[in-house]
């Protein structure tokens, strides 16, 4: 003890070991800071969204109950009253996009995943997978353009000219259609990962009993990978809910409690863009209303992501 002390005090003047240890500690602390930074981002999101949203709800012109239950969203109406701040039309619009795009993307994404995982040869897969991922890499503003310049005109020609069903120029279906295409690769890629994680022995057991490839895929692989597939579905839908530019461009700017996909609607995200594009000043009721809508949107996607993560975690526990 005494020996150690005297030795260390003797060399402590310049001890390369200690300098090195000190540097190591500093670097470890900096790296730890980088690691923890992501938590700060989450806190920042919550604080900035909810502080402004609370400011919005503290105004006398609005209240939380009519916000959540009201069926009129007229933030620009001359009479500013709680009746004009009901978020349900925006949520209805968002859910309509999510349901339609989901019903396009879920079967197609799952089909693509089964094909890539079970049917395609390695060579075909190495060509098809990057091509599919290309779809996920295309900017959303491009999908918006495509909806407006290609999907809507076709819809009008087929439904309006041939069948006489009125289609508005801005309509929910066109937007939902391109959002559906956009989330196919997300669903396909996550489901495929889940299916490839299913042990080979399960498939071979089924083949040994004389099952066809169809039977192996649908009765063995898909059920075994089900939690991964469900989590892929949830992530895809949550992506559709948060999708902004395609729905802003193609679905219109009229908040409406409608169930007709050929009508113009407005989603939560499209409303936020509309207000921001028009330069609402900080502290004004419109400038604050986007944070109330944003907080609603964030909460919805956050809950979905948590659910999907917990489902995925359970699935990992089975095979690892």
């Amino acid at each position, binding site marked *: 003890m005494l020996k150690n002390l005297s030795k260390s005090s003797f060399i402590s003047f310049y001890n390369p070991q200690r300098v090195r240890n000190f540097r190591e500690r500093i670097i470890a602390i900096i790296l730890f800071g980088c690691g923890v930074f992501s938590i700060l981002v989450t806190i920042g999101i919550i604080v900035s969204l909810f502080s402004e949203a609370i400011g919005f709800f503290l105004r006398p012109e609005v209240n939380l109950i009519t916000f959540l239950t009201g069926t009129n969203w007229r933030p620009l109406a001359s009479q500013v009253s709680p009746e004009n701040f009901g978020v349900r039309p925006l949520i209805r619009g968002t859910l309509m996009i999510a349901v339609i795009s989901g019903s396009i993307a879920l079967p197609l994404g799952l089909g693509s995943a089964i094909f890539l995982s079970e049917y395609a040869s390695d060579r075909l897969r190495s060509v098809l997978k990057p091509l599919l991922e290309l779809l996920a890499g295309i900017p959303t503003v491009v999908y918006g353009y495509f909806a407006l310049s290609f999907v809507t005109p076709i819809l009008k020609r087929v439904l309006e000219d041939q069948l006489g069903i009125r289609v508005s120029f801005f309509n929910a279906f066109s937007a939902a259609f391109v959002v559906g295409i956009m989330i196919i690769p997300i669903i396909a890629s996550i489901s495929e990962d889940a299916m490839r994680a299913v042990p080979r022995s399960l498939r071979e057991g089924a083949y040994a009993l004389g099952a*066809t490839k169809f039977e192996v895929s649908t009765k063995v692989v898909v059920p075994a990978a089900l939690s991964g597939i469900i989590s892929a579905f949830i992530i895809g839908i949550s992506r559709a809910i948060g999708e902004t530019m395609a729905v802003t461009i193609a679905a219109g700017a009229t908040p409406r409690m409608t169930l007709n996909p050929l009508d113009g609607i407005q989603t939560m995200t499209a409303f936020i863009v509309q207000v921001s594009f028009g330069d609402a000043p900080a502290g004004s009721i419109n400038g604050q209303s986007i944070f109330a809508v944003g907080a609603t949107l964030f909460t919805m996607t956050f809950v979905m992501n948590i659910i999907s993560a917990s489902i995925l975690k359970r699935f990992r526990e089975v095979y690892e």
Partner: protein
Amino acid sequence: MEAEKIISIDTKHYKENISRRNRAEKIFNVILLLSVLFALLMLTVLIIDIAVEGFAWVRPELFENYHSRKPENAGMKSAIAGSIIVILLTGLFSFPVGVGAAIYLEEYAPKNRLTDFINLNINNLAGVPSIVYGMLGLVVFGRMFGIFSNNSWFVNLFNIPIESGATGGWKFFLFDIPWLEIHLPFGRSMVAGALTMSLLILPVVIIASREAIRAVPPSIREGGYALGTTKWHVTRTLVLPIAFPGILTGMILSLSRAIGETAPLIIMGAFTYVPFLPRSVWDRFTVIPIQIYNWITLPQAEYRVHLAAAGILVLLVILFLMNGIAIYLRKKFEIKW
């Protein structure tokens, strides 16, 4: 006699069963192929549609002029410049923090609840809609919670000189160095936009860098430790050089996502009409996707259909180039262990 009958019924049943199942197999095969082909067909149609509408409008004016009231003169010079600068700044901001976090999580982090929480948190951030990051950027970077507005408690406390107006705030030179100008709050500047984008791509950068670092085999590290070096020395001289191509690839792919993002920058306050090239990072700016969106919203077909498509073509070419470089880097420096 009886036995023969049973056998013949059985084989008949068997044959029917087999042919029914084979038919199902074939139908299923076709359905699967169609579902893949549908997505690819849409990709093809999308690219052809845009090329047909826009190709003739990709002309010198698109790169030399600003937006104009005459479609034949309109270009997106300021948007191209804005996109390039914002992307470079985004890379500058997100690279150190993203790679640092990846090094921490792969090399340093102990197995405990905090680490689990950080992991969960990063995955969650990756699923947050991009528009939410725009609102975060607006409040934190653009306005800085209003701390630097006229007559705030903070400004009064420290007697900070505040310029009023839309581009106002506290302007000073850090350490009195002439090129280190700082504006607080960051307002609607390229710095604010790039910081917003950095937060947006941070989860992707971290996830990609971690994969690259994880791909370095443990034996390399153990070789370093056997020579008596420290953790940081091993990381800096052995792990990072080997993982670097992978990290760079992930970085380029993340930036190629950022370059197509529109919504966060609109929310953050990027402008739609900027008739000049930015002189400093504190200038107002616009980016290519916002210019495209702006053209789509105009009533005339020249803007709405053709110029928008021409802008999209430029954007897609940039994206393909960035992805091509990333794939090239990955192939060139790929090491098989």
